[in-house]
Structures are given as C-alpha cells and as structure tokens.
C-alpha cells in the first residue's frame, strides 16, 4: 500500500463523462433514424451506414497512421483509439440525416471522409475543431456535388423541402403549404425532404431526451428557434400574411434539426451562457436572412458554419462574462429590436 499525493478536489462527479454525453446524442437520434428508414426504405439505411462508416473509418485510419508515425506498433485498438467516445459516430449520424434520400452513396462517402478530415482531424481531433463537422460535410456535399447530383432528384433535395424553395422564389407566396397539413409538417409523415429533418415531432422527442439528460444546452435551440420565429412574426405583421408564414419557417427545412442537434455541439459553440445566447441569436438572424434574401432556399448549415467562426470573438476575455449584466442585457435588447425593425423594413423593400 502506498500513499499517493493528489491535489484537491479528491472527488469527481459521478455519471458525467464525454462518452455518456456523446452516446446520449446518438440515442436521441435513434427515433429519427428509424423514422428515416421507415419512410425512405433501404436507401436511407445505406446512406446512414455509409455516412457513419466513412467518418469513423477516416478517423480510425488517420489515428492509426499518426500512431505509426509516432513509432507505435500496430494494434487493432491503438493508442489514440477514439471511436469509443461516440463523437465521430454522432457526427456521421447527423451528417447522414441531413442528406436527401437519393444521393449516390459514393458522394456520401466522399463528403463524410473529407468532412471529418478537414473539419476535425487536421485541427487536432475531438475538442479542437472550429467548425461543426456534420455541417461542414453537408456544405461540402452541397457545394461540390450539388449542381450535378443533389438537385437532380425528383424530390427537392436541398435541406428544406419544397415549401422553402417556393418561399425563396416568392417570399410571401401562400401556396407553399398546398397539400401539406400542419400535422404532416409536424410529424413529417409523407413530407419530402432530407432523411432526418422532416419530423419535427421526433426531433423534439430527441431534444427532450437530451434536455432531461442535461446533455445539451437547451438555451441554444430555444434562442435559435425563437429568433427565427420572432423575425418571421415581424414579417407576418408588416406584410399582412397569415399565421402559416411563421409556422412554415419553423416546421420546414432543417431549422429544428439544426437547432437541436447541430447548433448545440458544445465543441463549436461558446462556453459562457450569454455568449451562447448571442451565438444562437446570430444563427437565427443569418438563417432567416439566407432564407429570405439568399440564393439558396436553406440557411441552417451555412448559418452554423458562419457563427462557428465568431465563437472566439464571442468568448473573448475582454468582454465575455459568465453572467448577464445590466449593461449586456440592455445592449443585446437594443440589437434585437434593431434587427427586428431592419428585417421588417428589408422585406418591405425587397418584397
């Protein structure tokens, strides 16, 4: 028996570890995965398998090579073995769920491998990446293969379904909802769109699970979705369109999916609560602006990548505080009000 000198504290929180947190996200994605396979058949199964396997394999091979270069002997379960912590599995699953159902598998594999390599591994692996891996891979697929492959499907393949496409052409066209009841848009049954993004209901179930397990920061999706909702409400009131307008913004496209599963990836968001709320607010504004004025019908993944770049600024030690102060709340409220007014005015002139 020996005395081992340690520094305080001598206890650690039970049931708190990275593996559990990442595994929780994977579990929260399960209803969506099953729904995607049920709705789209074997296609979906293959896409999800390929997206997960391509990411996991890339990371595994990368660390095998790194260990080899560092003079380790080959072992199946190598020194830098990282698959156990589920982080790459979760990235792969989220990436797969954002894809349209008739995308060629080779595109899925290339997107996954490039995504995990460029967005994660060369930055130094888990905890070091600047960009959300799934969003990066997804954007890579859109930009590299979008013109040839994704859009040629008979279902409008870009993240959002038809509704957003129509909205993007003519932002106040009430016909977007034709044929889809609120229930269809909420449950996702029979709705065209990406594998895992159509069913708001199941996404919210996953979110509820994550909330109860405290495995994500619930303020981020709340602020994100709330911002989009408030901005579309502003448009609704100034343009005199019906309540279908904000509801369409909420329920279509990847908003809820992105807000709950991608914008909450703790590695690529700020660490302070106020900064997280500013971050989510920025996400909402950029998403809404891209949806209304941009060339693409969908803005969620782009918004996430853009706001990822602002994380160091939001966390900067000169101004980032861990609690809201009177000053920060007042500045933030002024910014929110200005944004709402600017959006309403912008829609008036652009529409």
């Amino acid at each position: 028996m020996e005395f081992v000198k340690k520094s305080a504290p001598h206890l650690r929180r039970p049931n708190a570890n990275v593996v559990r947190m990442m595994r929780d996200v994977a579990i929260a994605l399960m209803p969506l995965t099953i729904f995607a396979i049920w709705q789209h058949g074997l296609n979906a199964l293959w896409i999800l398998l390929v997206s997960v396997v391509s990411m996991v394999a890339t990371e595994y091979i990368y660390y095998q090579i790194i260990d080899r270069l560092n003079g380790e002997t080959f072992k199946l379960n190598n020194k830098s073995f990282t698959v156990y912590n589920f982080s790459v599995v979760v990235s792969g699953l989220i990436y797969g769920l954002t894809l349209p159902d008739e995308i060629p598998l080779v595109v899925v594999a290339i997107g996954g491998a490039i995504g995990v390599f460029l967005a994660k591994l060369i930055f130094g692996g888990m905890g070091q990446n600047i960009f959300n891996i799934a969003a990066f891979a997804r954007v890579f697929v859109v930009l590299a293969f979008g013109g040839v492959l994704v859009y040629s499907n008979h279902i409008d393949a870009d993240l959002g379904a038809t509704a957003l496409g129509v909205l993007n052409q003519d932002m106040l066209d009430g016909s977007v909802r034709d044929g889809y009841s609120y229930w269809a848009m909420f449950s996702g049954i029979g709705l065209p769109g990406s594998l895992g993004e159509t069913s708001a209901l199941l996404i919210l179930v996953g979110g509820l699970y994550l909330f109860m397990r405290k495995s994500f920061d619930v303020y981020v999706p709340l602020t994100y979705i709330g911002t989009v909702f408030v901005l579309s409400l502003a448009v609704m009131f100034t343009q005199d369109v019906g309540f279908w307008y904000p509801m369409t913004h909420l329920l279509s496209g990847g908003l809820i999916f992105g807000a709950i599963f991608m914008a909450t990836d703790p590695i690529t968001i700020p660490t302070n609560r106020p900064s997280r709320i500013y971050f989510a607010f920025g996400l909402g504004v950029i998403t809404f602006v891209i949806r209304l004025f941009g060339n693409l019908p969908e803005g969620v993944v782009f918004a996430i990548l853009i706001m990822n770049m602002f994380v160091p600024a939001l966390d900067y030690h000169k101004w980032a505080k861990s609690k809201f102060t009177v000053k920060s709340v007042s500045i933030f409220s002024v910014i929110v009000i200005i944004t709402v007014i600017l959006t309403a005015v912008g829609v008036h002139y652009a529409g």
Partner: protein
Amino acid sequence: MISKARKVADYKQLTKELPTLRYVDPERVYINLQSDRCQTYTLDVKENDRVQLGQIIGERDGGFFKQPIYATVSGTVEGTTKKTHPSGIEVECVIIRNDYKDEYHSTITDRPENVIENMTKAEMVDVIRQTATVGLGGSGFPSYIKLDTDKKIHTVVINAVECEPYLSSDYRLIKDSPEEIFRGLKYIMQAVDAKKGVIAVKKTKTELIEVLERELTRFENLNIEIAKLADYYPQGWENETFKNALGIKIPPGTLPMEYGVLGFNVSTTSAIYEALKHNLPITKRHLTVNGDAINFPQNIRVRVGTCVKDLIKLSDGYSEDAKDIDFVIGGPMMGTSLDTDDVIVTPTTTSVLVFKSQDFHEEPCVRCGSCVYSCPVEIQPVNIMNAIKRNDKKALENLEVNKCIECGLCAYVCTSKIHLTDYMRKGKKLLG
C-alpha cells in the same frame, strides 16, 4: 451535464449518526511549535520538565500576531521531534508524555456568568488572544483579530453549514453540545455589540435544526435566528453563507466586517465559549475519520496533538483491498493530500479522509461549459485553462483568475474529468 451542477453527493450518512467516540488520552501528544502561518517560535520548557494541562510552554510568531503554545495534557516533556503538519509541511514538535492525570494549570479557572456579562470588548479579545483561539473551520486565522474589528457589527453569523462531503465533525459537535454554541454566540455578540445572531445550517439537516430550535427556546431573550440554507456546494463558503442567510453580497477582495457582519465556524464558537467560560485553550476537538479505504468510519473527540496514526489504528486500519490510498486532511473538495499518516492533530484538523486512489480518465475538453455555469465566483475555468496553455497573462488578468477560491467545484463537475482547479492554481502563480 451541460448545466449548473452544484450538488455534491455528501456521503455523510456513513458517519453522521454514529456516536462520538472518545479518544482523549493518547500516550504522547505532539504539540507543533511551527505552523503554516508561523515559522519562528520560542520554547520555554526543556526535557523532563513537568507540564500541566493548559500551561503555556512557548510562543509561535506569525509576523502580525503572536500565539501562545499550550500543553494539551499534563505530563513530562520528552524533547522535540519532527512531525508532519496537516498543511503538509514538516514542523518541529514538542513531545509530552501523558500522565493521565489531567491536572489543570492554575490559570484554568471558571468565570461565573455575571463576570462575563460585565467584561468589556478589550478584555474578551485579550482572553481570546491569550488562549490562542483560531478559526477552526480550517483557516486557522486568529479569532481575536476578527473580534477586535473597529467596524460596527450588526450581525454575527455562525457557520454550521459544513458543506464538504464526508465531514460530520461539526454535525456531531452541534448534536453533542448545542448549548456551548449558543453561549459562544452570546459572548461574541456581547463582545462586538451585535444586535442579531444567525446560525446558518443546511435545510436538509433536519435533525440539527430540531436540536438547534429546541435549544433556541432557552435563549429566547437573545435575537438569534436559525437560517436554513439550500443544500449545495460551496454553501459553507463564508460569502455564500452571508449571501443566502442575510442577503448581503460581499464582493471578492473585501472583508465582511466592512458590511457589518462577522462569521464564525461552529467549532470556533464552541472554542470561544471554552476560552471565555473556562479560560481554556483548545485541547480537544471533534474529528471525522472517513473515506472508502478505512475500515471503520468514526467521529472521534480527540486530544489536540494526537498522532493520526493512532486514530487510524482506532478505526481498524486501512481496508485490505486498497492498493494505493489518497490520504487527505480536511474535506475531499479542498483538503490536502499527504504522503504519510505520521501527522499531528492540530486545532484546525476537521477530518482525516482515506480514499482508494483513483486515476480519473481525462478526455479532451469538449467545452461543455459546466465549469463556467457552476463556478461560485463566476469566472470561466475553461477559458482560464486555455489562457494558461498559451501563457497569456493579459487574458488571465481579464478572466480574473485571482477571484478563484479553489473550492474544487470546476474539477468536480468537469465532463472530461480535467483537473481544472490545478489550472486555476497555476494561473494564480503565473500572475504572481
């Protein structure tokens, strides 16, 4: 996990209802001549001198204060030796062989209640100084300096929160002798002329509240309140206690006296009672022996100067299946780990904890923010860690690492099991 997490499992059920074992007659006691606050000393006795309980045998010098050294048993001086102080440093100790007679020195006399009632503040402070009463919550800060404040004090708070897990010595003290605490509080209120007294205790400790409330009926003429505080860590941190018991926020870097409040630990209160009532220095204290690598967790009433080795023997030794042990003096969140059990019990030793040594598997930081959400002083441990890694002193200043009280909560809650508290210490050192 990504949330404010301030509940720390308290493990007190292991010992809190156990009766207090008495172990007040060790064969030898070792009285430290130095301490972490006092480097130099004078020793007035030599080998084979006979000393009595409560006799002054020397004086420690802590720079801005001097502290008499007392014999805690009657017996013969056997010379000096080196022993480990609970703070981890090696100190010179005088050995006294116990003659088991407990002969009190002539200065140890009872003061009748009416004499105490007529004592002035200066007289009381003098008694506290003479008896070397210090803060027994662990700080070891001389109590007379606190009492001798020239600020107007309106409230005295007795801190009975004991928020560190595993410890139950204060708990046992209140259960065993609640009257001493009330009397101690009364004396303190008299000394600083405070109008109000508050005993702060966790609201989950219903047994204690019962005992205190029963005792309170005997002191109804005093304006004493029992504040029931929420059960989280670090509720026992003085500023947190004041905030929740009185609603007074004390900014870091300022002293509570400036806001008219004064806080004392329960054990200190009981020591102040002993000092004023019996003119007795601290010779005994309540101590908890606990942890998962000790065979019989116990509460022990122990003589100051006892060697901890004896107490381990009394608790049936270390458990056989413990390979390596983490031997801690003080609480598990803030206590010091030592590499030997040849330690002496000083007045401020609240507990001896023995844990099976665990190596926590550290993962890369996932920036979940739990440390930021949980920090009681509202700094950002994760960003401080990153600033230390890139040696950015400007950032450390802006992130106010010096506000850190080293409560250990950031490392406790960390999802990746990173030892953030160590980084905080490093950060303070970097700033100098």
